[in-house]
């Protein structure tokens, strides 16, 4: 009776949906980063006996991508991820449209000192990330599918990151992601109702550190490959 509007149709419910999908995407980002760090393992680390004597980063990365494509639970999680991104984007658009409708006439004088630039511009940061994802998918995911059976993904990545504009584009996308995470992680926990001043205080700093570590680690990969 009380929930006549439906779970995710109220202002609070929609934010819940943003938080859940956002946190799932963050989980993916961690896994994605760990996989990609294989690309920059120095040659001196090989052969790694622990993993059956892998000879080079080249072999290891291609074996890793082969595993991702042929292990069905990964495919399943990938589809959940695509759905999460789609819901995150659509929900953000719905919230923004509704919020724009709620706004009255514009103030003649505005003062933004009461909130951070990041928190006010999650939409712009998200749009940059969205454009980045489309290009990123076109460069690798699409090519991998088009090139057919067992392409040399390592070679494709290295060749792509030897282009200056690609490196610059990736740095922009990654920095936007870092800023998006700073506010996103804190906001998600608030939306889900982590009612504890101490916990929120800690989460705020964890979000900052996490965003910094993610940004730095993601950002060095294209740069290292470019100068290799």
């Amino acid at each position, binding site marked *: 009776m009380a929930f006549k509007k439906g779970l995710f149709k109220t*202002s609070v419910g929609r934010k819940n949906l943003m938080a859940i999908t956002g946190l799932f995407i963050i989980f993916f980002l961690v896994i994605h980063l760990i996989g990609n760090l294989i690309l920059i393992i120095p040659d001196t680390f090989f052969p790694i006996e622990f993993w059956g004597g892998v000879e080079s980063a080249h072999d290891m990365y291609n074996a890793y991508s082969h595993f991702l494509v042929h292990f069905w639970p990964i495919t399943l999680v990938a589809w959940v991820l695509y759905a999460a991104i789609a819901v995150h984007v659509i929900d953000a658009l719905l919230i923004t449209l509704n*919020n724009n409708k*709620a706004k*009255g006439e514009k103030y*003649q004088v505005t*003062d933004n000192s009461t909130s951070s630039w990041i928190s*006010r511009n999650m939409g712009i940061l998200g749009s940059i990330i969205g454009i980045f994802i489309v290009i990123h998918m076109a460069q690798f995911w699409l090519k991998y599918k088009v090139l057919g059976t067992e392409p040399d993904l390592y070679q494709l990545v290295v060749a792509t990151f030897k282009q200056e504009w690609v490196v610059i584009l990736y740095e922009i996308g990654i920095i936007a992601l870092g800023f998006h995470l700073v506010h996103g992680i804190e906001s998600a926990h608030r*939306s889900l*109702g*982590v009612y504890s001043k101490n916990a929120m205080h800690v989460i705020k700093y964890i979000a900052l550190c996490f965003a910094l570590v993610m940004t730095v680690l993601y950002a060095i990969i294209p740069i290292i490959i470019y100068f290799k």
Partner: protein
Amino acid sequence: MKLTLKIWRQDNAKAKGKLVTYKLSDLSADMSFLEMLDMLNEELAIKGERTVEFDHDCREGICGQCSLVVNGQAHGPEQHYTTCQTHLRSFSDGDTLTIEPFRANSFPVIRDLKVDRTSMDHIIQAGGYISSFTGIAPEANTVPIHHDISESAFDSAACIGCGACVATCKNSSAALFLSAKVAHLAKLPQGKVERAERVVFMVNAHDDEGFGSCTNTGACAMVCPQEVQLIDITRMNYEYNRSLTTVEG
């Protein structure tokens, strides 16, 4: 001291408004902001012009009637002050102040700086009540309440419903006001009877009134004259999600 005021003048809800410039001199730094507007209105009345309309009542920072956005800041430049408690010593001689009404679609302008905040009353009506025994007033302190909880509930109950949170929010969300009301009653034993349904009724009413969705920028808590904190919004979200599993029917 001398001040230049740019004041929003608008004849009624449908008319188009504009900023009109007035110059005031012989002001005292000890005057309150509203006394300055009184002085302006006296001058306008003598000249036979229509006076500037603005909301005010107690003028001691507790009724929540005064509003006004001064230079883009709800309730003026002093943090956690109402407009009526702001004095001219907060400004410098020769300053130009732009004075606008609280803006949100749910706060239609009645005239000049006066806005209709009935939408907030509708949120209160949707769930701001408790069940209790009728008859003579019970002995106080029959229900033991932990000191910290009663203090915390009082911090939330301090909300005077002025609407500065809505005026400041980039989404015109009333989440801070709404959550202060939800949290205040949810924390106390007297509010437990309707605890689960209250938050849902009030959030639904908030959305029906056309307020936006909270994006946790925290601007509201920075201007709130009663220092209601952002954690109250988190409490409201907690109550909302908790009620998903507890509402009957």
